[in-house]
């Protein structure tokens, strides 16, 4: 399957501004960043979480811990995958009593976020879990919503949203398109 892009909905500057705004909202809502831990969902949630943590550190003048989460072990659709690949999970220190911000690139059905919450709770009992996404494309299948959204992008269920990030893809941009054989 090859992704065929049709529309570019976010430019590099839009992504930069969205990350900035989300970071300010996180600080506002959590009254600083003292108890905040940022956790990115693999793959593209990880570079986004690093950008947000860097922005938080700059805003608050303190190091904000960052972790990365592989949710493969928690997926509810394992039986449909031919060869699931489990990558490493790393959470920075104890999350007990912290405010954990889950970061992902696209919020779609909500199933990845459900898996991520299950994974995080296995590491301890955070004070709260919040969700930051770059793009919310709708079509939820679970009662989950994002606390921080870069951009709401209305889509049809058959469309694909591709987030490209410098760290992974060599450029920043968000595209809507479809998959073709």
């Amino acid at each position, binding site marked *: 399957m090859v992704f065929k892009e049709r529309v570019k909905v976010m430019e590099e500057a839009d992504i930069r501004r969205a990350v900035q705004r989300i970071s300010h909202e996180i600080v506002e809502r959590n009254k600083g960043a003292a108890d905040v831990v940022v956790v990115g969902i693999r793959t593209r949630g990880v570079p986004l979480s690093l950008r947000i943590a860097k922005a938080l550190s700059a805003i608050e003048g303190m190091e904000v811990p960052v972790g990365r989460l*592989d949710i*493969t*072990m928690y997926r509810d659709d394992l*039986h449909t995958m*031919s*060869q699931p*690949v489990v990558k490493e*999970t790393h959470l920075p220190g104890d999350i007990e009593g912290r405010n954990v911000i889950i970061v992902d690139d696209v919020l779609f059905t909500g199933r990845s976020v459900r898996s991520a919450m299950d994974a995080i709770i*296995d*590491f301890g009992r955070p004070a709260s879990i919040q969700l930051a996404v770059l793009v919310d494309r709708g079509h939820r299948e679970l009662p989950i919503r994002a606390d921080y959204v870069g951009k709401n992008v209305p889509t049809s269920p058959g469309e694909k949203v591709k987030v490209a990030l410098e760290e992974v893809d060599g450029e920043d941009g968000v595209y809507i398109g479809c998959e073709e054989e």
Partner: protein
Amino acid sequence: MAERRHLLDVDDLDREDMERVLDTARSFSEVLHRPIKKVPSLRGKTVVNLFYESSTRTRMSFEVAAKRLSADVLNFNVSTSSVEKGESFKDTALTLEAMGVDAVVVRHPVAGAPWLLRQWLQAAILNAGDGMHAHPTQALLDLFTMQERLGELQGRTIAFVGDILHSRVARSGIKACRAMGMKVLAVAPPTLLPPVALEGVVTGSDLDDVIPHCDVLYMLRIQMERQKEGRFPSLEEYTRLYQLNMQRLGKARPQVVVMHPGPMNRGVEIAAEVADAPHAAITAQVSAGVAIRMAVLFLLLGGSEGGEKVA
């Protein structure tokens, strides 16, 4: 029909498959350090440990691995089962199948027994040791342990020392090490070496000659009954010529890794002080065993049946 997945011996795996198992195991080893050491990956799957040979360690390792993945585990030990009443291997297997198990972990004193199960059953078969033939998860956990200690294995040298002839650990281990690009030596009294040359393995009978050239010294368990078979004159002589003691360890490379599949005969193939030395990775092998068996169970049962063959 969708292809079933099994792990019968390391020859089922090419180097890429092995690397995938090792990488997956690395991810799972992190689970073992969490406050809640359990993930839901195999929820609703049932794994049977079918052991026709007593082996508390291997069975417990598979049991812990399956439980950490939330699978249900049944233990079928020969001494407590209807095998004593004369039920055949095949009937036992078919009974398990009728109970709806997803994977059968089998240990059997007869080489090839897991291959029979594969013909009879729909479930995934994992070989946990068959006769003197194969023990693939041991070979994989040994690779994992070596990688943790040494990093890249390509070009490294390992010597298997001791009863190579009767050892399924050595037989699978040699294949796995060769597949990873290691140089493999086998050191034993001539009576404990296989009569047919092992492919790609340099064999010898002088341990002192070999020690300075090795990155890994893999000491095999000496089964006491072999002496009664006349394989070596006395335990004292074996110990004098083939025991890894502190004096021999002193001639080895400073970073040498000492391994043993357990259970050890302290004072026979390995001196007690060596087993407790920082070079010894013997308890690390046990921890690696759980991570490797989690990875193998996950790769065999985690994906869809129609998926590509892992193992």
